[in-house]
């Protein structure tokens, strides 16, 4: 969808140089991390819980075709209209069709990352339909014409003072205040009015239960409930991997989701939507639509290793614990999904040739995997993406844009490296040469890796005598 290639180096430099952003992110990530640790304070219990989460998601994905058919059948029986979209463009058209059929010009939205993936607001604006974000964080960034910088807390890059200034400048007749309660009251007043104005409500879906045809929506502000009940029409958009098999699969996943995301035992609101308003009922939408978006997920699903990407329940805790995300924030990544999950998902959705750089923005420190509530092997998948960047694979499961980095210079370097490390005498000679010439490296012509290393570090202390040589001198046995 976003087929523009992002200028990663420029974005990264800009984010790293923004002291205010760095401080905001650090403080926010520390808080979220601490809350999570407080809730999951027993490591053994957490391991058991996430083993369950992992098993539930694996089982759901292993039966994905059947479960999606079952979900469609059950939803239809319940009176929910199900639509399939292979691309974001198709999903947008379906949305537009429904909205236009109801002559609506204003929709209200609950938080949804899939709608971000569709760039729904932008698309609707082109058709003179106004989309109003009602999640507080989403509302804040919409006021400032920004995109979410985090998949759970979209305005996490802003601090209180910045929000105070924004409200004062953008909301008419709003006096400047930094008092949290007053800021909340301002937002509540504006948002309440919006709920009455919305002719169609759009929401995401956290889990869809195949056996009952139930759409689960997790939220803290009640805006999700308003969006899905106040307007006469509700459209839910969902990535097709979000289906689970049974109702009993929901509680452990919900616990993992809220605990991992915000350290909450449970959120303030948990909505289970199973049908539109029934005859005789006094409230609820008259129509409920579910749009199931593929957008490359089927292709990811076909590969057993990459499929694990689809286990994700979008808790965002991998972002909160990532030393790279903590220093960049979400906008620098340039795509909808940032951080560790974004770095494995985005290159698969958009193609390595567009977003492959994201797979290089990791030290493989493993902090993300340590906290992932469904045990996604993020570093293994990052390695796979790096390997496919350099490899024109002929497998049908190869990631889109594979082989985009194939180049003679780097291939030759690694071939030389392998030859040296597989041939003891060459290796010994190399060690000797580095010992002699190492200190001269910055003066020698060659690739700029030396310059990049020394921009913040002294040269490595190349030894005059290698360990191989020292060991020999000391008479350590070799057998």
């Amino acid at each position, binding site marked *: 969808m976003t087929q523009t290639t992002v200028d990663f180096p420029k974005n*990264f430099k800009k984010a*790293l140089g923004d002291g205010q952003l760095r401080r905001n992110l650090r403080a926010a990530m520390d808080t979220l991390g601490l809350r999570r640790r407080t809730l999951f304070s027993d490591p053994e219990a957490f391991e*058991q819980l996430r*083993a369950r989460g992992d*098993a539930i998601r*694996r*089982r759901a994905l*292993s039966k994905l075709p059947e479960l*999606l058919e079952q979900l*469609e059948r059950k939803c239809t029986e319940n009176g929910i209209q199900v*639509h*399939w*979209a*292979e691309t974001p463009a198709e999903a947008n058209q379906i949305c537009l069709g429904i909205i236009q059929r109801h002559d609506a010009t204003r929709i209200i939205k609950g938080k949804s990352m899939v709608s971000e993936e569709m760039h729904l607001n932008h698309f609707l604006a082109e058709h003179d339909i106004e989309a109003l974000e009602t999640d507080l964080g989403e509302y804040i960034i919409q006021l400032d014409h920004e995109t979410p910088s985090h998949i759970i807390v979209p305005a996490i890059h802003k601090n209180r003072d910045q929000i105070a200034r924004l409200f004062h400048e953008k909301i008419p007749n709003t006096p400047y205040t930094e008092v949290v309660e007053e800021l909340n009251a301002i937002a509540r007043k504006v948002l309440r009015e919006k709920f009455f104005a919305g002719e169609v409500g759009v929401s995401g879906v956290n889990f869809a239960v195949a056996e009952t045809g139930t759409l689960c929506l997790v939220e803290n502000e009640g805006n999700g409930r308003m969006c899905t009940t106040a307007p006469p029409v509700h459209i839910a958009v969902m990535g097709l991997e979000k289906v689970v098999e049974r109702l*009993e699969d929901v509680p452990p996943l919900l616990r993992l989701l809220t605990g991992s995301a915000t350290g909450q035992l449970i959120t303030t609101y948990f909505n289970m939507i199973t049908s539109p308003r029934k005859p005789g009922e006094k409230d609820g939408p008259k129509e409920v639509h579910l749009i199931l978006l593929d957008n490359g997920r089927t292709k990811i699903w*076909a590969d057993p290793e990459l499929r694990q990407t689809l286990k994700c329940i979008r808790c965002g805790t991998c972002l909160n614990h990532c*030393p*790279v995300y903590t220093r960049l924030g979400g906008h620098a990544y340039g795509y909808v999904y940032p951080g560790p999950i974004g770095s494995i998902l985005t290159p698969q959705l958009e193609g390595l040739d567009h977003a492959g750089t994201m797979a*290089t*923005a*990791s*030290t493989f*420190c*493993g*902090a993300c*995997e340590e906290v992932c509530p469904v045990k996604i092997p993020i570093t293994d998948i990052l*390695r796979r993406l*790096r*390997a496919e*960047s350099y490899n024109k694979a002929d497998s049908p499961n190869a990631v889109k844009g594979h082989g985009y*980095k194939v180049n003679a210079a780097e*291939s030759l370097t*690694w071939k030389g*490296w*392998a030859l*040296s*490390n*597989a041939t*003891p005498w060459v*290796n010994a000679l190399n060690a000797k040469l*580095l010992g002699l010439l190492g200190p001269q490296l910055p003066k020698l012509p060659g690739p700029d890796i030396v310059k*990049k*290393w020394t921009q*913040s*570090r*002294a*040269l*490595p202390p*190349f*030894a005059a*005598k*290698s*360990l*191989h*040589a020292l*060991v020999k001198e000391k008479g*350590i*046995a*070799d*057998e």
Partner: protein
Amino acid sequence: MGPVTVNIIMTSHRTADPDRDSGARAAPTTKAGEGITMPTRPEKVYYFGTCLIDLCYPQAGMAGIELLRREGIQVIYPQQQSCCGQPAYNSGFLEEARKVARKQLKAFPKDYPIVIPSGSCGGMLRHHYPKLFANQPEAAEAQRFAGRVFELTEFLVKVLDVRFEDRGQPIKVTWHSSCSALREMRVIEHSKSLLRQLQNVELIELQRERECCGFGGSFSVKQADLSSAMVADKVADIEQTGASLLLSGDCGCLMNIGGALKHRNSPIPAKHVAEFLLERTQ
């Protein structure tokens, strides 16, 4: 049924799938090599020196050997050894990684434990070799090899049960946990327990001990700006401790953090834990 379901059914693998019928309460899956049983005190061990120690920190490598020999263990250092293959493995060059890794499989043929003064290279040998050689002729060999790998401080504590007597002057030190020692090899408590045996050594912990220093192998130069920002934060954390020495069990991190300390003319040196332990106790 919509077009997407058709796509999915078309690409569905209808072969046996272990996930399909697993209950929601499946046992936790274990990483390859996890649950390794500790050997009883052996007569001989292999020593895997690592390429970085070979090139830049041979004195740290020798210190590890001395610590083992002092306990009466005969140390064998195969001259055929080189690098574990991690640089290529992490950079996306799997064939090259395998070529080098195959050499290591051959260089340590006997059944001795393989002791390694690094969590990172240890993690590669123990956890990643089985993955690197999955579906390769060497799969079984790599599994057996992985089961023989021990990080140095882990081996000193769990197998040799060493007891140290501190002979040094009082000193304040701080400790950097490498990510692989912390999360893959899980040996940080062993490393620290050895430091705590030293009476005159005060260990002051970092505020963000669990955070990566930003080395990440090729990351340090491919994402040089990010890496520099991360190591700058690590250096600031080290300086706020008031310690006069930084210790770690991994030379990759030491090269990164030590290099950054030196770059800003900090008086705090960075040292491998093996070297420090030996100095304090001889």
